[in-house]
């Protein structure tokens, strides 16, 4: 059945690349190996919970890169497509900068959002549920300036 490959048309600039099936197969095996590593790493204590989480996310990121680079064919894609992909994930990374707001709330104290209260992570969502404060007291998310 296999006739002229659609992408061997070099007159059009070799617009698509047929990936070797073994590359795809070994990529799958490599991803499955990384999955097993993910599981083993989750059972292992690297010192503290932050490092444990960072390790888990690093392995997941490596897996994602191999899926994007090889399975999704970005490896052989045009420069425009590559820039688009990198920008997309770059913007996602920037969005996580929002967490900086939560991390720095202690420097800008706002009534109801205190971080120095035990069992309160600085959220408007109180640790006690239902809230012990009256709603009008919880809702003061501003402070007078000047």
């Amino acid at each position, binding site marked *: 059945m296999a006739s002229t490959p659609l992408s061997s048309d070099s007159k059009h600039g070799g617009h698509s690349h047929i990936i070797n099936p073994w590359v795809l197969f070994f990529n799958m095996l490599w991803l499955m190996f990384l999955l097993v590593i993910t599981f083993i790493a989750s059972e292992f204590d690297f010192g503290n919970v932050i490092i444990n989480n960072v390790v*888990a996310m690093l392995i997941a990121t490596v897996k*994602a890169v191999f899926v994007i680079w090889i399975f999704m064919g970005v490896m052989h894609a045009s420069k425009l497509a590559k820039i688009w992909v990198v920008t997309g994930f770059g913007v996602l990374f920037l969005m996580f900068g929002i967490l900086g707001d939560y991390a720095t709330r202690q420097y800008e104290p706002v009534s109801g959002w205190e971080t120095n209260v035990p069992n309160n992570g600085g959220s408007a969502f109180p640790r006690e549920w239902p809230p012990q404060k009256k709603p009008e007291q919880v809702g003061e998310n501003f402070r007078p300036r000047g």
Partner: protein
Amino acid sequence: MAAIASDHGHGHGHDEALHHQFEDMEQQNDSYIVGMWTFLVTEVMFFGALFLIYTLYRSMYQLDFYLAHKVLDTRMGMINTFVLLFSSFTVAMSVRFAQLQNRMGVLAMLGITQICAGTFMVIKYFEYQEKFGHHLYPGPGFGSSPSYLNGASPNFAQLYFGLYFGMTGLHGLHVLIGMIVIGYLMAKWWRNSPMVTKDYIPTELVGLYWHFVDLVWIFLFPLMYLMPKP
């Protein structure tokens, strides 16, 4: 200008799949792929916001999230991850067969992908069924069987399960949409439609979507099922 015009003419004469607004197949395929990636980037931002919410609340209520997550069956999650990784391989192979215009190869690979997707959904169904049986879905009856909360605060366990059902549910919806789209693509290949046989791009674009579904699960699995002890 003359050179462009002659290239254009050449392209039309050579490739049936080339649309009139493109200079050549390279430009056309690039436009399709960049367009698909634009859609996928919006999906990245959509799931990204959910991951952001999850990161925030998990960092705030680490212990409750950890205790609540113990109810999940890691073995089921592992099997589902293996299934999705394998399906990504079969989809990548189907794109390869599409480039080689091997109709039966494409149909076989997409068929295996459909079986993988079905397996994923069946496993997910059993997982959800168990959680529903233990009243672990967000709502008024949440936590009516406290033994399944493993000592987590019912409010924050509810937050965890809200995120669990929200994120895995939306992912499952994407799997379901993927199955429908792959089914449509298979029908086109089965009927020998020139839309797919003369141009590998439709198969490639569906493949990109399916890999994205796999990509989301790659992050969901360790975040939801493999939490380290705080």
